[in-house]
């Protein structure tokens, strides 16, 4: 398997992967979306809410706020040693919000939450939660826990995770009459007219729409878009809860765990006869 990092920053990752198959990429994608755990608020105790927003609406907004996740410290509640319905320090973190607008309207941002664990805080302090008019007040305690995207989207560690076949764009300069129509129609600017030639730049950006092929009047077509079914462009965008590398490595761990679990179970059943 060949791999190359095309883009990488704090929250996103783009890979070019060769020598694998769609089934494997899809398994990874599905695990990232629905089985890699992350932290989110699940329970909110509202002590006082005199804002114009209803309690349940407020709780919903708080739930969707991504939190920085420490996977090494926290356990999934169903696997935690405490076995308690209310959770313990190893499977739950509490955040407190206590704000009041004194003499003019304010916007309450996620940065106002005070967490019992300084590592479990919203990924950004600039997420607006609620607006308060003078003398309105919100006091609440929110309980965050690890969860999986399959239970609710708030536990998804990614905002986007997708793959596509690796595009291969070819231009046959012998047939091309340099009409420039394909250069103009390409939505990703993959084709470029340079002198008396149509050049290809960043073919990985091609969306395989084949508009360039449709607009080419030549027979056979002077421009051709094909794809390699064993190479992929895999992109992933984290919400900030976990680093993109960590998400991918957790997904591999989960897939490995499933396969191992299956082999063990199957071996047990096979011997029963």
């Amino acid at each position, binding site marked *: 398997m060949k*791999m190359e990092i095309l883009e990488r920053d704090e929250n996103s990752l783009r890979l070019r992967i060769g020598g694998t198959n769609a089934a494997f990429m899809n398994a990874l994608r599905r695990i990232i979306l629905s089985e890699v755990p992350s932290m989110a608020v699940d329970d909110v105790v509202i002590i006082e809410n005199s804002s114009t927003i209803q309690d349940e609406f407020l709780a919903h907004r708080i739930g969707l706020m991504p939190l920085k996740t420490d996977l090494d410290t926290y356990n999934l509640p169903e696997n935690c040693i405490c076995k308690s319905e209310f959770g313990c320090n190893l499977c739950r973190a509490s955040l407190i919000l206590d704000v009041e607008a004194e003499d003019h309207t304010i916007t309450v941002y996620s940065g106002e939450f005070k967490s019992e664990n300084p590592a479990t805080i919203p990924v950004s302090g600039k997420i607006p939660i609620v607006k308060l008019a003078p003398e309105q007040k919100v006091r609440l305690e929110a309980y965050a826990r690890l969860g999986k995207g399959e239970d609710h989207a708030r536990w998804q560690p990614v905002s986007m995770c997708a793959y596509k076949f690796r595009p291969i764009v070819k231009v046959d300069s012998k047939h091309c009459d340099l009409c420039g129509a394909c250069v103009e129609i390409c939505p990703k600017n993959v084709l470029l007219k340079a002198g008396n030639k149509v050049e290809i730049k960043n073919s990985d950006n091609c969306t395989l729409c084949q508009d360039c092929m449709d607009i080419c009047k030549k027979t056979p077509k002077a421009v051709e878009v094909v794809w390699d079914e064993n190479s992929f462009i895999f992109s992933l965008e984290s919400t900030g809860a976990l680093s993109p590398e960590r998400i991918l490595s957790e997904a591999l761990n989960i897939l490995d765990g499933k396969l191992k679990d299956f082999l063990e179970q199957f071996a047990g059943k096979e011997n029963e006869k």
Partner: protein
Amino acid sequence: MNVKILNRKENELKIEIENEGHTFCNVVQKALLKDKKVDLAGYSIPHPLTANPVIYLRTKNKSKPETVLRKAVAKVQKDTKSFRAAFDNALKVYKDQATL
């Protein structure tokens, strides 16, 4: 995950996997289909509200289906291993380039 054997013959095997879905079954099915000893391999999810897919496998030339299935799963395991190695390597190359 809980594996149940539904039907077993000389060259046929039907198993039910509790609490799984397309994620696991599709990757295993595609791995099975690459094996030349496999005559037919597929899976179905009998009801969308229950996560209990059934994998069906039929082999050629009296090959033992259990062995073929175990091999296919081991092949996927190998894939995850090489993916991890390739990813670690790509990350290293990227970091080396960034420091240059």
